[in-house]
């Protein structure tokens, strides 16, 4: 019974933790710029304002369904992530299923934004899908390294195997670095923010989205931040014994990401993919080789 209640409430928790992380990031960027910055609950205010807009402009049925598909995929992905002490939906082959489901959101966005007919949206989608080719390669190699080392694909077992400071960050540093850079790319931070580049393609796929659509996409973004950081914490930072330590570790990941994000300019798309297929992939392959030799 408790498991079922936790299962239902997990997306809500993911939303609020995601909102907190996004708000913290905005505040932190402001402090690095030597500004005071918006209040911590600013993203929540933005979402309420967007959902309370009077009108909604639609460009077709698929345009309306795009954000719904993205948000649905995010909710499903959250249900696969284990919380400390609770394994949620766990069929066999957790990690593999997880890597597949994470893609559905981007595809939903692509279908929805593609129908708006705005050339900026098309360019943004092309960039998003190309970038996905880039960061998925090192990430899948890193994931497979963990599967090879622990002989399991269950995220819950992977989390439990790292208890008592047996973190993969310390024991498989090369794999962890590759996984971190891949997660970083998936979050779309600088220098990999070619998808949502306001100066070039006017926020890319979101260019025709406004009002309630955009509100839904912002909810999706908050949950996406939760998913990416929680996956990194689960795979490399040893999970946690309770939910507060879990959130604290996620906050640590966000802080490190923001410190890098604030000071870097933007790659061109071909440079971003070339970077992903060079350094993180080399690190991931070296890590795989070490695990293979070490048994």
């Amino acid at each position, binding site marked *: 019974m408790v498991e079922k209640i936790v299962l239902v409430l997990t997306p809500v928790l993911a939303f609020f933790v995601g909102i907190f992380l996004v708000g913290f990031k*905005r505040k932190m960027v*402001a402090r690095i*710029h*030597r*500004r*005071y*910055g*918006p*209040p911590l609950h*600013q993203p929540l*205010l*933005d979402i*309420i*304002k967007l959902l*309370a*807009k*009077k*009108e*909604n*402009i639609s460009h077709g049925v698929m345009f309306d369904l795009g954000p719904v598909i993205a948000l649905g995929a995010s909710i499903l992905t959250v249900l696969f992530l284990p919380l400390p002490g609770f394994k949620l939906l766990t069929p066999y082959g957790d990690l593999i299923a997880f890597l597949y489901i994470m893609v559905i959101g981007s595809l939903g966005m692509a279908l929805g934004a593609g129908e708006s007919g705005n050339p900026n949206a098309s360019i943004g989608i092309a960039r998003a899908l190309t970038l996905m080719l880039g960061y998925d390669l090192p990430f899948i190699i890193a994931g497979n390294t963990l599967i090879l080392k622990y002989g399991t694909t269950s995220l819950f077992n992977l989390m439990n195997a790292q208890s008592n400071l047996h973190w993969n960050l310390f024991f498989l540093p090369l794999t962890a670095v590759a996984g971190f850079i891949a997660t970083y790319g998936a979050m779309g931070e600088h220098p990999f923010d070619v998808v949502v580049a*306001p100066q070039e393609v*006017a*926020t890319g796929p*979101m*260019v*025709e*989205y*406004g*009002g309630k659509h*955009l509100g839904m996409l912002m909810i999706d973004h908050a949950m996406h931040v939760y998913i990416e950081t929680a996956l990194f914490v689960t795979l490399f930072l040893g999970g946690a014994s309770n939910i507060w330590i879990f959130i604290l570790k996620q906050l640590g990941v966000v802080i490190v990401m923001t410190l890098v994000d604030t000071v870097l300019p933007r790659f061109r798309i071909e440079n971003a993919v070339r970077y992903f297929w060079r350094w993180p992939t080399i690190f991931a392959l070296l890590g795989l080789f070490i695990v293979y030799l070490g048994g």
Partner: protein
Amino acid sequence: MEMQDVIEEGYVGILEDLRKRSLWMLHYCTACGAIELPPTITSRFDAERFGIAPFVTSRQSDILLVTGYINIKTLRRIVTVYEQMLPPKYVIGFGSCTINGGIYWDSYAVVKRLDLYLPVDVYIAGCMPTPMAVIEGFRSLMKLIDEGKANGWKKYIEDNAYYKENQRKVLG
């Protein structure tokens, strides 16, 4: 007053209290007043602490800043952009040019008064308005929203024939 009205009024009141804390301005700078916006947004004056951030497309924005003199050519674009924005939406007129044409008052190519063509919620007087004046303009817009007086977008729907006729006179 019936129960339904009480609930609805309370709902709108709370909503407007929240709405004033999140205003996204359109990154479309029409004239010279736009030069005051970078210092308003960046470190020294920091407009983001009021929740005011620049956004690049008309679909996502709430405030349209008309920063200075308006050519007849530009007016066409401003009207298009304003009609693309989703209500509730607000217009801020910058400087004396949007009030009476400013130093371009006798030019054949410049429109004299902005509020004949679009409903303006707040005017910021002066040429150029300083970042402090711009922030003050934002503050007064927030106050108007809180009091429920920033109803330019409703006026544009109700008096649409009036605005359209004025636009047609200039644009042809």
